[in-house]
């Protein structure tokens, strides 16, 4: 029976098509299970980072990719997510600004930099340097700014700094024109 079927010229085509169909079905089923978990986790993560940057936060709104954080009725500040292109891939950074548009806190959401070198951009020793800086000062010390690069990881450090500075200027313009 199987032998007879296999000698048919169309058999390989039918077989491969069946395999692919099963695969597609399985994957879309898996995706439907996991995608909601992934989405919920991302929102959870953003929320917890916002809470660490704005400790008095009671709630937040999103408006054109800008997070507006509130403490009661009062606006505490703004936050945005920016992407930098590092040494090993994209670096996703959440930046919190106070009402005067100075940086209130920086948190690296995800990165694929080399552990021990560029991977150290997540350490507070690096990210705390951004606190209180205005858009003009967000540059590496060697480029005339106020952020010291991590030794041996200039590319990663510069990627973070440039992503933050670039987006910060854009976001402030947006906020001013509201």
């Amino acid at each position, binding site marked *: 029976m199987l032998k007879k079927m*296999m000698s048919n010229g169309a058999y390989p085509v039918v077989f491969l098509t069946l395999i692919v169909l099963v*695969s597609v079905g399985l*994957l879309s089923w898996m995706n439907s299970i*996991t*995608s909601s978990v*992934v989405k919920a986790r991302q929102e959870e993560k953003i929320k917890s980072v916002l809470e660490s940057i704005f400790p008095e936060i009671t709630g937040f709104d999103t408006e054109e990719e800008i997070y507006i954080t509130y403490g009661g009725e009062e606006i505490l500040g703004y936050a945005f997510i920016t992407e930098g292109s590092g040494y090993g891939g994209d670096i996703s950074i959440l930046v919190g600004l106070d009402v005067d548009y100075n940086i209130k806190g920086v948190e690296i959401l995800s990165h694929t930099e080399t552990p021990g*070198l560029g991977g150290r951009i997540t350490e507070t020793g690096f990210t705390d340097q951004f606190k209180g800086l205005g858009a003009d000062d967000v540059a590496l010390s060697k480029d005339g700014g106020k952020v010291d690069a991590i030794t041996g990881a200039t590319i990663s450090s510069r990627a973070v700094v440039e992503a933050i500075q670039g987006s910060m200027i854009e976001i402030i313009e947006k906020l001013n024109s509201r």
Partner: protein
Amino acid sequence: MNDLRDKREDCPGRSVGSIFWKEFVKGLVISNPVFILTLGLCPILAVTTSIDNALGMGAGVIFVLLCSNIIISTLRNATPSLVRIPVFIVVIATFVTILSLIFEAYIPALHQSLGIYLSLIVVNCIILGRAEVFASKNPVLYSIADALGIGLGYTIALFIISFLRETLGTGGLNVFGFQLFSLPVLSEHPLTFFISSPGAFLVIGLLMALFRWIGVVKCE
């Protein structure tokens, strides 16, 4: 590369258990996929920078290898040889994608640090190699033994390499957030050379020499 060839038919007198055991054990040392067969080296350079990544990658490879070996072995008599490679690739890619989705949803930190190398298990030659050389020609039970042995051999290799690289390169060892130890002088002046890719080549080269020597001793 002789051990890549299948010799199943020459030992009819042996029990199922002893063949299972033989197929399992061979992957650990005498045909260790990394040090002896030298398969799947590219992701090794990238993921052995830390123990966490190495163990995650090892677990991923075992999962994919086991699932793909079972399916491919089950379908081996029905698979037309004309389209066998596309069939293998589809089967492997399906399991890799499932793995990637599971990691992304339930172990996001690991998914994050393995990055692109998780999806690249699809083109890891160990898995396609075992499908073509072993699973497509052997019964399901032996294919399971082969997958477990080769997968575990790969994980052991990743573990040894990452242990050496993380210890020398960062001066300490962190496993899933717990610091196991931190060496006094090395943690202040880590040999970052070992974290970079050239360091990986050096470590792999030395270990390969060691495993070959063990293999030679065992065969004699």
